[in-house]
């Protein structure tokens, strides 16, 4: 079957999709957007969290056919999504698919996800990359880096999408609020303290900015 939907503000079309393929699979393997992670594919870990029409969902539990005509935001589009939200004021500006973003990750760029040799562009860029300066990151992304909340980073994309949605709803969450909101996202590395720090930090910076 063919599925048409919007990802990070861009119209996408996936062909030859099997019934039974998840949104996660289509994003990762057909559209070349591997940012949403495949840690359990059982709806238990939250690593694959994306926003579907503004609502955070586990993309591994969404059948690809269900997203026909709908709007998806992944971690690749999170910075742009946050920027749009700032510019348009109210939260979820992009959630309706109406923001017409031109940013996000281009399909061509994203499709370069193949094995690269040791000296290729992509991999040495990974190694060289400076710690965030200059890169257009959203508040929550920068806070995760600054707080040391990223270790292996496999849980990070899902946590970022979920935490960003929390802060959109609740700009000064209590620790219990943060714990409740992130309770569907497993992280095996950090012990969560630094993830809490990151969300507190993002909330504080968001507060300063207003």
């Amino acid at each position, binding site marked *: 079957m063919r599925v048409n939907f919007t990802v990070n503000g861009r119209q996408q079309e996936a062909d030859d999709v*099997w019934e039974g393929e998840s949104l996660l699979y289509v994003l990762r393997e057909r559209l070349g*957007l*591997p*940012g*949403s*992670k*495949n*840690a*359990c594919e*059982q709806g*238990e*870990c939250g690593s694959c969290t994306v926003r579907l029409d503004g609502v955070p969902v586990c993309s591994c539990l969404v059948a690809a056919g269900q997203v026909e005509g709908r709007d998806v935001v*992944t*971690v*690749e589009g*999170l910075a742009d999504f946050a920027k749009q939200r700032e510019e348009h004021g109210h939260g979820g500006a992009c959630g309706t698919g109406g923001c017409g973003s031109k940013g996000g*990750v281009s399909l061509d760029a994203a499709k370069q*996800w*193949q*094995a690269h*040799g*040791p000296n290729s562009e992509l991999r*040495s860029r*990974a*190694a*060289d990359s*400076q*710690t*965030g300066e200059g*890169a257009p*990151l959203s508040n929550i*992304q920068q806070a*995760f*880096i600054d*707080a*040391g909340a*990223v*270790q*292996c*980073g*496999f*849980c*990070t994309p899902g946590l970022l999408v979920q935490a960003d949605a929390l802060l959109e709803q609740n700009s000064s969450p209590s620790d219990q609020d*943060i714990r*409740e909101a*992130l309770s569907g*996202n*497993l992280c*095996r*590395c*950090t*012990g*969560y*303290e*630094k*993830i809490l*720090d990151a969300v*507190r*930090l993002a909330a*504080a910076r968001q507060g300063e900015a207003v």
Partner: protein
Amino acid sequence: MAQNTRTVPAGTPTNVTQKHNKGGIGESTLRPDGTLKVTGEFAYSSDMWHEDMLWGQTLRSTVAHAEIASIDISEALAMPGVYSVLTYDDLPAEMKNYGLEIQDTPVLANGRVRHHGEPVALVAADHPETARRAAAKIKIDYRELPLVTDEASALAADAPLIHPGRDDHHSGHVPHPNIVHRQPIIRGNVEEARKRADVIVEGEYVFGMQDQAFLGPESGLAVPSEDGGVDLYVATQWLHSDLKQIAPVLGLPEEKVRMTLSGVGGAFGGREDISMQIHACLLALATNKPVKIVYNRFESFFGHVHRHPAKLYYEHGATKDGKLTHMKCKIVLDGGAYASASPAVVGNASSLSVGPYVLEDVDIEAIALYTNNPPCGAMRGFGAVQACFAYEAQMDKLAAKLGMDPVEFRQLNAMEMGTIMPTGQVVDSPAPVAELLRRVKSRPLPPERQWESAGEGADVRALPGGLSNTTHGEGVVRGVGYAVGIKNVGFSEGFDDYSTARVRLEVINGEPVAMVHTAMAEVGQGGVTVHAQIARTELGVTQVTIHPADTQVGSAGSTSASRQTYMTGGAVKNTCEAVREALLEIGRRKNGSYHPAWATAELLLEGGKVVTDGGEVLADIADILEGEDAIDLELEFRHRPTVAFDLKTGQGDGHVQYTFAAHRAVVEVDTELGLVKVVELATAQDVGKALNMLSVVGQIQGGTTQGLGVAIMEEIIVDPKTAKVRNPSFTDYLIPTILDTPTIPVDVLELADPNAPYGLRGMGEAPTLSSTPAVLAAIRAATGLELNKTPIRPEALTGTL
């Protein structure tokens, strides 16, 4: 005690805003891969993609112990989209097994399966679902064999032998072929010492099978190359160890198997063994196409070895003034069907079985069994975790029997620098055991009944059971418990443990740039951050590039055993020093005549310049390198040698370095439903020198949480009747969520080890040790129950077993 310490309070926004600056050692430099990881651009092994690639799938045994009478692949092979189906008969080389130490693990089952989930056949197809369906069409006729599931069935006179005719370096000294390895440690005279004891306590402890549960699934991509070899992009802990095991079974020379580390989503020991590496290469070579394999979570539970479940039998004595007299113990580890790291786990469990205490008279025995249970191997804490769980429970029992405070009792017996280990090894660097305990004890306790503090009745989210509303505070009791542990750092027992680093210094756009190339697996621990910090410190440069880890450089050894900052960090440091010397040599040649300091002063590299120890600038690094080739050196680093433990007495300087951590757990228990909420898990640890405090604290908190997990929730449940795994999913194998994890205040000591690079102490594993017994002790304090098994389940607390 003279000490240089920094105390890091539980995080608040104000103490995490530090931006990275110069970025040398001792600073909380941020991760170089952080941006890629938060934007979703970091390429993990499961993200690899190649034009025209196929998907590989493993068919795994549905029974634990059986002969394979026949395998019929014809239907699978006939399915459209299927490119290849492989079984044992298709293996290309004479060598058909692999293994870390003992090559007893078949690449594909050879006529017999020994555990549930053992790989039997492989499929490559053009869609993962096609591959899965094809694998399901393979028909296997299993003839089930009697099971070996525990010590009794493994060591019975007529027990089926898991590896009949085994011929490895341990088979000659073990009392039964179903014992992988046995290590006794005999020191002093237990029978004599026993007579001095005023109290004696005994205990039998059961430690459940824990899973590493790293989030990034086993995965990778194998690409056949024109020279008949293969390029493998994979998440692993030790590229060169994989290579040594992969090349022989592929029938290829090592040069034809080129491995590159792809992004690793956590490891914790679970990636020390081969999982999908060989399978992907076999399929790629058979189809001449790139093949990607990604386990789903279900398969991941079968795809890696777990933490050894254990039974531990302990006896301790003490005098009435609180001095330990003797210890006897027997530790039985279940290694499962294949050896993996079991021999080394035995060595650790026995040599660390006394804990961080002074005890001269001991009688110790540790064994690992071959059974039909899932294979067990490396996991964070590696043998020391199981022992710590038991000896710390014993310490509490002794203190209670003597009417002493459990912390004071431990402090009275705490080892220190100069203490002799049961192996006869002298602890020759700081061992601040009593001080770590003092620190966790002196921290103010979290307020009682915190769930009420909002003033509007109970916030049930903070109570045991949380939003299930099982309690609003009635029947909730608090308990406090303590534990401390000791772990060795690095590979022990005479292993030739080394690491290699290549460092290149050159001028790019007028600026000196260092490139660090090692084969170290970055699994999330932050090695890449620290290597850049070391290079900046040693070479006085700002720009450092970390080359991707691959097998084009010498081995870095494993990212495990808390060894990587010590070993590969040490290798980077030494190589940088050699590069510095080479640079200064050029400087002397070129500029030496201009200033006498070139010949007489101690010279340093700082801020891109050569300076004297008095701070006088002699030259720019860039100018010295002008017109020269880049300085490019590759060196190996070794720690001081260790020796194997004597097979009869266990004596020998077997370990490189020791590391220590203490915990205080505060728990609240709903005694009616048996639900536990850990309220706080404070910890103190000596790290020798924190090269990056932000990473150090993160590792301590992460390790602490894994210990909490095994205390109250984590266990792979193996049905004792069938030896089948019953909970291979995140629905049924529970790891702590952010709701299960309390605040973890961390107190970091930095008492330098004079033998280690920068004085550092490997630190990744220690926090996992004492966290579990501290939580158990707190639950015992709250409930008055004995509780000798992990994890604690509600029925153990409510007496409804």
